[in-house]
């Protein structure tokens, strides 16, 4: 049994940022466990640029962004194990991991879950039709093209306007494939406006909103799909079917925080984020188990993943110093137009970073924070999109009272 102060599960952007910050805060006994043979997580396959504009004030590619943190981890001599998969974690913070070197058990004082997210699949959204080769999730297609030098197809339909799907529309076009169309079941895009502009509009790739794939054809390899328009309830409208010949269907239909290990330890999840329910310290319901990054909630920009992990690191450092953190009995409630918030509960005793998403697009609105029916703070926004995470720094003096009274977050049209 190897003892560590902090075990970080997942060496992607969140895990790396947490490790570097912890070390800067004087925590020495850290170990990062990474299942892949390199640090960097999903960034390794994101070879497009646009990372780091917030964090580093410059545009970096994914691997460059990751390399900055990896360099710091190495320079600071932070221990890490790659090609190591965690099989189990427990509520008393025992961790079992395997690698080619063997099976290793660890005992940690704190565990940081930075396990990222996975893609929603065809099966999860139950698209009718056959099951031929040529149906890929966007991230898998991206891994083949960018990491394995393998071309997945030539004539492509993309379902879902999530950012990876948009990025792949451009990527496949640049590599000589014909992207026939991008379809989005919602009446507005799921990805960032800049990606709609730079990945679709710049290449004349049509985006059809309120459309989805209603049939997949082909016995061995994909031969075509049927596309239908949908109504407000997302039901296909009969008579709107259009057939596309294609050899590849790329799905960019959402990301789900990866929390199978969290569940093993008894971590409670939020049905909205599919990530852990955390307090302002990013601590889960299991004392000493923390979570950040896409494992906690799916972010729009990696910069915010790093910043969140750094905030988490401060709380973990405090947890290690004090042996515990103050209770957080104040719940954050939302109105029906807010998709979720992170954190979901606070102490009322300190400043915290509030992350949230709206459920539908708004123009000229304000995000309001109130307590006991009284408005504490409002953030005016010219535009609020579901694709963009909204962050509000809430400071202690914003509170009228630190009594135990829940906070309520709502959207108001101004």
């Amino acid at each position: 049994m190897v003892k560590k102060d902090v075990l970080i599960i997942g060496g992607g952007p969140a895990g790396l940022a947490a490790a570097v910050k912890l070390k800067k805060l004087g925590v020495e006994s850290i170990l990062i466990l990474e299942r892949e043979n390199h640090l960097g997580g999903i960034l390794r396959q994101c070879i497009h640029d646009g990372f780091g504009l917030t964090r580093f004030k410059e545009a970096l590619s994914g691997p460059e962004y990751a390399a900055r943190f990896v360099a710091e981890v190495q320079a600071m001599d932070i221990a890490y194990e790659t090609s190591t998969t965690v099989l189990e974690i427990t509520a008393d913070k025992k961790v079992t991991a395997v690698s080619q070197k063997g099976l290793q058990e660890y005992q940690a004082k704190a565990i940081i879950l930075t396990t990222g997210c996975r893609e929603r699949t065809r099966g999860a959204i139950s698209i009718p039709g056959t099951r031929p080769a040529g149906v890929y999730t966007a991230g898998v297609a991206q891994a083949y093209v960018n990491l394995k030098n393998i071309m997945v197809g030539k004539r492509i339909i993309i379902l879902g306007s999530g950012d990876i799907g948009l990025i792949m529309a451009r990527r496949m076009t640049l590599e000589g494939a014909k992207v026939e169309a991008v379809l989005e079941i919602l009446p507005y895009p799921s990805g960032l406006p800049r990606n709609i502009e730079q990945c679709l509009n710049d290449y004349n790739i049509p985006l059809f909103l309120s459309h989805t794939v209603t049939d997949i054809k082909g016995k061995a390899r994909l031969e075509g799909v049927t596309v239908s328009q949908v109504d407000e309830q997302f039901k296909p409208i009969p008579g709107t079917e259009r057939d596309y010949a294609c050899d590849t269907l790329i799905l960019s239909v959402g990301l789900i925080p990866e929390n199978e290990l969290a569940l093993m330890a008894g971590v409670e999840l939020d049905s909205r984020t599919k990530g852990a329910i955390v307090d302002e310290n990013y601590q889960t319901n299991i004392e000493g188990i923390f979570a950040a990054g896409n494992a906690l909630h799916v972010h729009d920009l990696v910069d915010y993943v790093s910043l969140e992990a750094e905030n988490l690191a401060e709380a973990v450092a405090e947890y290690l110093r004090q042996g515990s953190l103050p209770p957080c009995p104040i719940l954050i409630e939302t109105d029906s137009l807010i998709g979720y918030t992170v954190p979901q509960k606070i102490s009322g005793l300190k400043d915290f970073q509030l992350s949230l998403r709206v459920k539908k697009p708004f123009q000229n609105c304000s995000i309001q924070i109130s307590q006991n029916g009284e408005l504490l703070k409002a953030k005016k926004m010219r535009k609020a999109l579901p694709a963009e995470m909204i962050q509000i720094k809430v400071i202690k003096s914003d509170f009228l009272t630190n009594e135990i009274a829940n906070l309520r977050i709502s959207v108001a049209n101004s």
Partner: protein
Amino acid sequence: MTRDVRSYDVLIIGAGVVGCAVARELSRYNLKIAVLEKELDVGMETSGRNSGVLHAGFNNKPGTLMAKYCVEGCLEFDQVAKELDIPFKRTGKIVVGFTEDDKKKLYQLKEQGERNGVPGLEIIGREKIKELAPYVDGEFALYSPVTGILNPFIYTIALAENARQNGVDFYFANEVLAICLANQENQPACYQLTTTKATYIGRWLINCAGLNSDKIARMMGIDDYTIYPCRGEYFILDKKAGDYLKIPAYPVPNPKEGGLGIHLTPTIDGNVLIGPSSEYIEERDNYAATQKIMDLLLKDGSRIFPYIRREFFIRNFAGIRPKLVSEEQGGYADFVIEERTETPQAINLIGIESPGLTSALPLARKVVEMVGEKEHLKEKADFNPYRQGILCFREQPLEKKKELIEQDPNYGEIICRCETITKAEILQAIHNPLGVETLVGVKNRTRAMMGRCQGGYCQTRIAELIMQEKGKEPPEVIYARQGGNMFTGRVRD
């Protein structure tokens, strides 16, 4: 172009569970045997696309071959599972009902089962249902303790591998195009088969072609069989749903629907299946799932198992029953297993639908018996009934896991995260005894890519391992079927 000509004592057409069982049972004797399969692996059609239930035999009419072989196949399966090293569990099964009419039908089923020789059948009430299946709804049920669950891919693969061990040759991508009876005077019967790949000559022909068994029969000149394809669709639910269902739960069968009704089945690996529907279709290979049936499955499934949640959906699939009678004729016919006088030494197995998986070995022994009636079968001294499967790392205790990694470090490298499948297991699957090289071949042998991320994490790694181990370029990697190429080429040369 010269074609390879290969001669055998016995040619088996079709590598479904029945073809593989026949191969395995015949491999006990001194015969040169080949299995010809149009697909790239065994169990690619009906055998791999069903509920994975080892039926007890109470659904079949007394006196039928179905009833006889099903009961026999069910009761002997502990020994079979041991010999073939396959996971198998006698979970028992409940058929739940709500109305007085249902109750009457359940008593009829019980009586029918008892006449067939099914042991332990019992009518149970709400309390016992809640005990066996706390999340299943029903007023009363027929409880069958001997019903079991198994992985139909693994069972078919195991039969084939055991046959292979005992000398049977398997030829994939060999679709039979023509059969001629090369009968010479005073010579024993002899069949010449032309496939898409080669020519085969055999003294015996065993037609185990399932959905295409009527076509094969027609090639021999027997034109009075017609297979009516009847599709059944399924949902596969996450293992998280498996916590709520440990025993197959069926509704009272409605004879008009043709199948056993839309039921809930835990799989041997811990998932839950909802299905199958029952729908006569034109094409024999149209495995599409349809919106209409998906909606029906969820509606009907929820009636007896209200605990179905959208987030549990992993995948849909469909299977096709090779029915021997049409919907109008009632959709129910017994298994046909016969040798006709006009085609001596050709045995046709036709209409082998449910309970075909359970009945495969008894059917195979019947084939052996029929061959034995015509010629003296000499048992091989070195026949080995034991086959060893791929050891599942995930299911081993901690100490055994450590030991395995020490012996082979590839056990320490997890390729499939959702199902905890190691590189060692993937490599064993890639180098399987049957020489199957598809991605789905690895999937069916290991469960890699079957979990909730559906290969999101591991598919790229497995495709790469197949290329490395088999010396393939990207365009040569096949997903499941011929023409199902995964990739079009390299991004950069």
